[in-house]
Each structure stands twice: as C-alpha cells, then as structure tokens.
C-alpha cells in the first residue's frame, strides 16, 4: 500500500528560481489496484514517483510504502518496490541474464533464488532465446522485457511505473500493459503515471488528476466522468483543470 501525506518537493532552478514541482500531494493506493497519476508534461508525475521510490527526498511531507516511511527508512522502502520507467536503460555490455542477476544481488536475493526466479520469468516472457545475448544487441521490445524482469525479480509488493510505454510501439506497449495487469491480479499495489488518457481509461482502477504539482481530483474513472458530466477522460481532465 502507498500512502502519501502532504508531499512537497522544491527544486532550485537556474532560470526559474525556486520551483515547486510537487505541492501537498496526498493520495492512497491499495493492494490489487492500479492507481493512475494522470497529468500533462511538467505536472510533477515523475517527481512524485521518484519520491515514492526514494530516488529523491521530499522537501516536506512523507510517503509510507507498505508500512515503511520514505523519510525515516528509505532503505527499507526500496525492498518493497519494483521500479520501471519509459526511459530506463540497460547495461549494454552485460547479457540479459547478467543484468538481471546483478539487480537480484543488490536486492539481497541469494544465488539459487535469483536462478529460479530468472528461469521462471524468462520462460513466462519468452526470453530464453536471448538470455545470454548482450543487451546492446537486443531489439527495443526485448530490452523492455529485460527491464520488466529486472523490476519484478525480487517480487515486490509495490510496483511503480513512470510512463512505462512512452516511445514504444503497439506490440511492446502491449507487453507492458499486460505485465501491469498481471501485477495487479497477483495482488500488488501498482502506481502508474501517464499523460495518455486512453491508456489510463483502459488500465486504471482509480486515477488522480495532477497538474502544476497539485492533485485536482481523485476517484475511479467513472466517478470523474459522472462528476464532470463528460463522456471521455480527456474532456473531463480539461474541465477539472480549467474549471
């Protein structure tokens, strides 16, 4: 479970001075649910997700992940989370298997467990043909699969996805979307950011509309449509942000 409380993040920017990228963000995301963070470019999605996954420290407020606080025990939080973003890269000179094993070790898994989980996931995602090929030689779709295995190898209860489908073709996007559904169905708590409304409609159980660092509205997709009297999320989004 993810719970954020009055999360704020300020950046010092050379040109703009002090920028508040995240402004009192409070929401909750339950196990077995896909929670969507929906907002335009620069809304503060990435920053919020980075705080949740402990890459960044909040300026004020906090988030509690599966009972562990990001401010007081970031190390503890890291074990609870699997992280995947659209621009996550791979180590080109390592093979798919070596790369995955490296992260398994960083997550404190022992070698036999790493071996077992890797075989399981590589078979599930049909990756055995390129398991020992260097990452630099893989296609974008294959790379995406390696990233997926990397993020979920330690079987975390919480998954964080930051625009995971950006820049991918339909086929690769499909792999990711299916993977997110699998995570949800296995009872993980999934948070997912996107600026693509249709994707949010398809995938999210609940969404939060974020803009200029603030959460404008939160609820199921249906709630938002009913509340705004619109029949698609895009119009609802505009109405919420401008009205």
């Amino acid at each position, binding site marked *: 479970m993810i719970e954020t409380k009055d999360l704020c993040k300020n950046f010092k920017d050379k040109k703009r001075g002090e920028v508040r990228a995240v402004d009192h963000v409070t929401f909750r995301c339950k196990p077995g649910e896909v929670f969507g963070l929906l907002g335009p470019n620069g809304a503060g999605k990435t920053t919020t997700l*980075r705080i949740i996954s402990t890459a960044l420290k909040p300026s004020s407020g906090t988030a509690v992940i599966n009972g562990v606080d990001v401010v007081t025990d970031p190390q503890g939080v890291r074990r609870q989370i699997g992280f995947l*973003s659209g621009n996550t*890269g791979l180590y080109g000179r390592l093979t798919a298997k070596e790369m995955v094993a490296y992260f398994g070790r960083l997550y404190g898994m022992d070698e036999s467990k790493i071996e077992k989980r890797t075989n399981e996931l590589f078979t599930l995602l049909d990756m055995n043909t390129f398991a020992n090929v260097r990452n630099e030689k893989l296609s974008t779709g294959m790379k995406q699969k390696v990233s997926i295995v990397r993020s979920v190898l330690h079987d975390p209860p919480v998954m964080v996805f930051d625009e995971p489908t950006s820049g991918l073709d339909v086929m690769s996007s499909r792999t990711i979307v299916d993977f997110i559904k699998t995570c949800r169905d296995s009872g993980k708590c999934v948070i997912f950011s996107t600026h693509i409304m249709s994707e949010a409609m398809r995938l999210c159980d609940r969404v939060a509309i974020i803009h200029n660092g603030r959460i404008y509205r939160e609820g199921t997709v249906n709630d938002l449509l009913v509340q705004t009297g619109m029949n698609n999320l895009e119009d609802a989004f505009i109405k919420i942000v401008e009205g």
Partner: protein
Amino acid sequence: MQTKNIKTIFLKELKDTLRDRRTMIFAFLMPVLMMPVIMIGILKLQVSAVSDIRKEKQVVVVEGFDRLPAELQARFESHDSLTIKLSTEYPGEDLKQEVTSGRIPVFMSVPERFSQSLDLESQTDIEVYYDGAEDRSSVAYEKIRRVLTNHREGVVTSRVLKRNLPEELLTPYNILDIDLAPPAKQGARFFAMLIPYFIVLTCFLGAMSPATDLGAGEKERGTIETLLVAPATRGEFVIGKYMVVLLTSVSAGILSLTSMALSFKYFANSKEFIDLKNMMNVQIGFESIALILMVVLPLAGIFAAITLAVSIFAKSAKEAQGYLGMLNFMLVFPAFVSMIPGMKISMQTALIPVINTSLIIKSVLSEPDAINWGLVLVAFFATFAVAAACLVFCKKWFEREEVLFRM
C-alpha cells in the same frame, strides 16, 4: 555500508569495464604499446640527430687549395667525412653568399703565399666561413678546425724543437677533463626527466575512461534511477565504482612501468641499437618499480575520486569527456616539473601531489642510491591524505540530488 553490496557492485562494474573496448585501449593497450614506442622514438631521434650529422660527409669549398702545404692538403683529402671541392668549380659565384643561403656548408679561403708565410715563420690568416645556426655547417666547421689545429700544433712543435727548446714549453699545464657521469647515468638523467610525465599521464587516462562510463554513462543509458531505487546505499555505489576506477588507473601505471622497463632491457641488448646502448642503460629493477608504485598508488587514488566526481556531475559521456580533458591539462601538466634541470624533491614539493610523484620518480630513476626515504614517506602520506579527502568529497557529491538529477 555492507561489504557484500560493495563486492556485488565492484564485480559488476569490473566486468562491464573489462568489456569496454575504449577503456581496454586507454588503460591497458596504450600503456603497454605506446610508452615504449614514444620513448624509443625520442631516444632514436636524440642519438641519431647528432651522430648522423657527424658521420655524414660535408662539402668544403676551398679557394686556393693548392696554396696549402702538401701535408695539410693530404690531411684534408684523406678526411673520411669531408669532401674538398675547389672554388674554381663554382665560377662567378659569391661563395660566402652560398654559405648563408645554405647551399654550401663551409667555404674556406687560403691566402696567397700561405706556404711561404709558414716557411718564413710569419703570421697569416685562413678564413673559414660557416653558418653557426646550421647544425650541418657547424659540424663541418668543427671538422675543419680540428684538422687545422692539429696541423698548427705540429708546426709549432717542429719550430720549438728546431730551436732546441723543451717540448713541455708548449703545454704549461694539461687539462684533464674527466666526466664523472658514466654513460649510463647520462642516459638515466634524460629518461628520469621524461618518464614521470608519461607515468602520471597513463594513470590519469587509466582513470578517465572507466570513470566516464561509470558516472555519466549511468545517466546517458538511463540506468541511474534503477540504481538509486535499489537497496544499496549511494555510498556503496561510490565505493564499488571507485575501486574499479582505481584499479584500472593503477594497472595502467604498473603496465606502463613494466613495459618501459622491459623495452629498455630489450633494446639495450639489441645489435641494431648499439648507439642507444649507453643511453638505454637505465636499470629499472624491481625495487625501483616498487618505490615508484608507492607514490603512484595514492596518486591514482586522487585521480579516481576526482574523475568519478566530475563524471557523475556531467549529464552525458561527452560532457564528462570535455571536463576531464580540461582536468587532464590541469592535473597532469604539473608533472612536467621533472623536466626542469636540477629540480629535486624537497620538503615543500613533497607535500604537493602530482609534483611530488613526478619528482620522486625522477630521483628513483636518476639517483637510485641517494633516495631520501623521509621525503618519500612525506609524499606518500600527503598524497594519500589528499586522496582520502577526494574520496570523502566524491561520496558526499554522489549523495546530492542536484548532482544526480542535474537539469
């Protein structure tokens, strides 16, 4: 801080680095191949530049060759590296002008009645025109001067003997010039001035290439976030990465030293390089290498920390290379102090990293018997302390969000 995590990170980065062709070239291939090539190239130039001109034949154009006494004529004609040409072969030419323009190395003019003047024991002049700014012309001039001086001494001696005077009259005292530096030491001095710079440089290049990849490379590939959300601390990442950079830097240094020592040995014993033999006679033995390592190791420690810190600050490998190129100039250039003749390690210079390493390498190579161990220890600890400070800084630097997520 967990050693298990550090080990995991170290092993992964090491594997990654060993598979990086660029790093392999900079850290391993270049020190092994380039160093001896550079050194031998310079050596060969050094030795051959002077001796080749001496061995070459130079033309001397002589006006009034037949006015010289027969004995002197014979000495010139039998000279094995001078070719005598008569001025009559150059009708209508201004021969002094030809010397200035470099077409003729030397022009010698013998006055009329030269032989007679000798016989009459009166004084006369021989004019030798040469171009002191030209190596070839100067060498030819020296050869002519030697022939003339020898002949002149013979004339004087015979005049002294003719008057029944003791021959000692001619030489009130002898100057015994004894060069105490054996040839080996002279060669060593030359190398001792040059080698330090190259060793410091290879260490830096050995750190620079992997540091670029391990720092800025993480941002460029988009792997940095996955590291930061993994349950290893930032400190553990710094140490693991640092150890790999340190290792490549140190191995670059060791390899260049070893390869240099071996190539000296090889060339000193080879027949084609007989001329080089004296200059090459530098002994780079095991003790010298061990001693040099003692100052090179902590220096590599400084280079590894600084290059890694700079690299993680940069947003791309290209940006990192730009910064590190400037840093190369700033950090490695001071190693040229060893080129200053007479510059030796002192208490003050022992405290300054890079400069102390350079000067200690110089003294190990040129005066292996007179090593000041006190100063070596001062240099070791001073450099070590700076390396430790750089590492602490590097670790703090890695914990800053402004550095990791620079916009």
